[in-house]
């Protein structure tokens, strides 16, 4: 089946025009097989997992745990015990900021992040640093060479790729330096997981997080992977439900990994959908998307007054730009009337916007379902912006 035909949403009209969805970096549209997997759970074997002894619960548990194995293979994790389901990247990082910090941070420790972080991998560490009297340090933009890690540097928490610019952090060099300092490393793969093959063992990181909805899976699903011996030392994040082993009024024994970090009834339909999304993703052809990104670059640069940001050869399939002096929100409103959905604003990366000297950007991000016609529609719409703003 033609890939676009697998995405029912692409059939709808927006303001009377064909939908051109160029906001995949915010959330990817879902293929029919993912929608169908979620529907099947709700309609055919809806039951709670890990506790029922009846047929439905058994099936739900099997499908749920099968998704965990899918994630394990997707990131080359050594064991399913190390795969924790969360509600998304943000919850995964908040879990770490709570439990990792409690277990490992001491006053005076350094937590390092990069300049490219979105708010979800910045604010939790900013708060943890304040609470535990640690120092939050930032690797400068375009930094090359040695990072000035101090003797108390404890954690490097960095994004694989920028959600705002699409550019990649030099992870292998950074991780090697962090490891030489005895630090732990968290990789935020929210933007990268869908486009870059992830191998946590080859990367040599200690934690890796990403969201289901950016890899063509459902919203409200996410992953925290961590090394078993570290997760073992960390206290639980939330209490109740599956995360206990035995409870007395006086004391509680917590469950083993991964249940220890999975309190309450999880997003079962979502996790099953995520497993299906990963199965779907691995048989797709990703090369066309790289070619489309380069086509988009050429076409965008043909628009007078358009200025690209993060123009590097190896990057995520997205382009951020400004057009003359037209504010990104005005651009977004105008192209929306042409059926073109893009992102405009600070992209949840306000400190990066400050470093770039801009208040907002326009971002067009591509998915496996996009075509050259979609790029052409964007460029046509940008010419409409120029007509309206006479620029």
């Amino acid at each position, binding site marked *: 089946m033609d890939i676009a035909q697998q995405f029912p949403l692409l059939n709808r009209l927006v303001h009377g025009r064909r939908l051109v969805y160029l906001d995949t970096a915010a959330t990817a549209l879902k293929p029919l097989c993912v929608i169908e997997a979620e529907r099947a759970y709700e309609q055919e074997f809806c039951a709670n997992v890990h506790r029922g002894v009846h047929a439905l619960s058994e099936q739900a548990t099997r499908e749920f745990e099968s998704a965990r194995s899918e994630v394990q293979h997707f990131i080359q994790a050594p064991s399913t015990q190390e795969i924790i389901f969360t509600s998304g990247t943000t919850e995964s990082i908040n879990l770490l900021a709570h439990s990792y910090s409690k277990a490992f941070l001491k006053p005076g420790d350094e937590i390092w992040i990069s300049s490219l972080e979105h708010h979800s991998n910045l604010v939790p560490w900013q708060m943890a640093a304040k609470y535990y009297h640690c120092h939050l340090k930032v690797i400068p933009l375009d930094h090359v060479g040695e990072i000035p890690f101090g003797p108390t540097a404890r954690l490097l928490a960095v994004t694989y790729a920028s959600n705002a610019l699409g550019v990649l952090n030099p992870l292998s060099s950074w991780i090697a330096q962090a490891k030489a300092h005895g630090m732990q490393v968290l990789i935020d793969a929210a933007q990268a997981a869908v486009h870059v093959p992830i191998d946590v063992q080859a990367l040599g990181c200690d934690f890796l997080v990403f969201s289901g909805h950016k890899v063509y899976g459902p919203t409200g699903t996410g992953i925290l992977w961590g090394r078993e011996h570290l997760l073992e030392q960390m206290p639980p994040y939330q209490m109740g439900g599956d995360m206990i082993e035995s409870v007395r009024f006086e004391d509680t024994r917590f469950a083993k990994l991964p249940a220890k970090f999975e309190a309450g009834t999880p997003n079962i339909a979502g996790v099953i959908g995520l497993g299906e999304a990963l199965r779907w993703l691995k048989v797709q052809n990703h090369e066309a998307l790289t070619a489309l990104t380069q086509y988009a670059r050429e076409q965008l640069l043909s628009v007078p007054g358009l200025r690209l940001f993060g123009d590097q050869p190896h990057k995520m399939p997205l382009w951020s730009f400004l057009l003359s002096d037209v*504010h990104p*929100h*005005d651009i977004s409103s*105008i192209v929306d009337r042409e059926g073109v959905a893009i992102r405009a*604003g*600070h992209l949840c990366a306000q400190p990066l916007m400050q470093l770039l000297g801009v*208040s907002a950007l326009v971002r067009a991000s591509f998915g496996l379902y996009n075509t050259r016609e979609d790029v052409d529609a964007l460029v046509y719409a940008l010419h409409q912006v120029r007509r309206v*703003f006479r620029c």
Partner: protein
Amino acid sequence: MLDDLYQELILDHSRHPHHYGDLPGSTHSAHGHNPLCGDELFVYLVIENARIQNIRFQGEGCAISKASASLMTDELIGKTLQEARILFQEFHELLTQEKDQFDHLVKAQALRGVREFPVRVKCATLAWHTFEAALKEQAAEITTE
């Protein structure tokens, strides 16, 4: 519809805003901020005898928010606080109701096109809410003195 929103008057005001800049000696001021889009606005006022003697604004934002702030300053300068309240009420009605006749609003009626773009209503009202905050801030100070 797009051309209703981005008509010449709006573009002019966004590019060459009236009463733009700092206002030394202001008696009232407030900082307005839309956390979702990052737009920032400062409104400065000189109020004497319950009348807006002078008004200026400063800030970053889209064409709609800048033009709206500029048009607001044109509407409000020289008005009494009572008249300003009526103008704010009429501006609110302009954006939210199918009403085309206004007794007091003059130039800000050019923003009528925002009605068709619900997600942009916040852009158009940021300046007015900041103006209101500037008045309240001073009122709070008065009560504590």
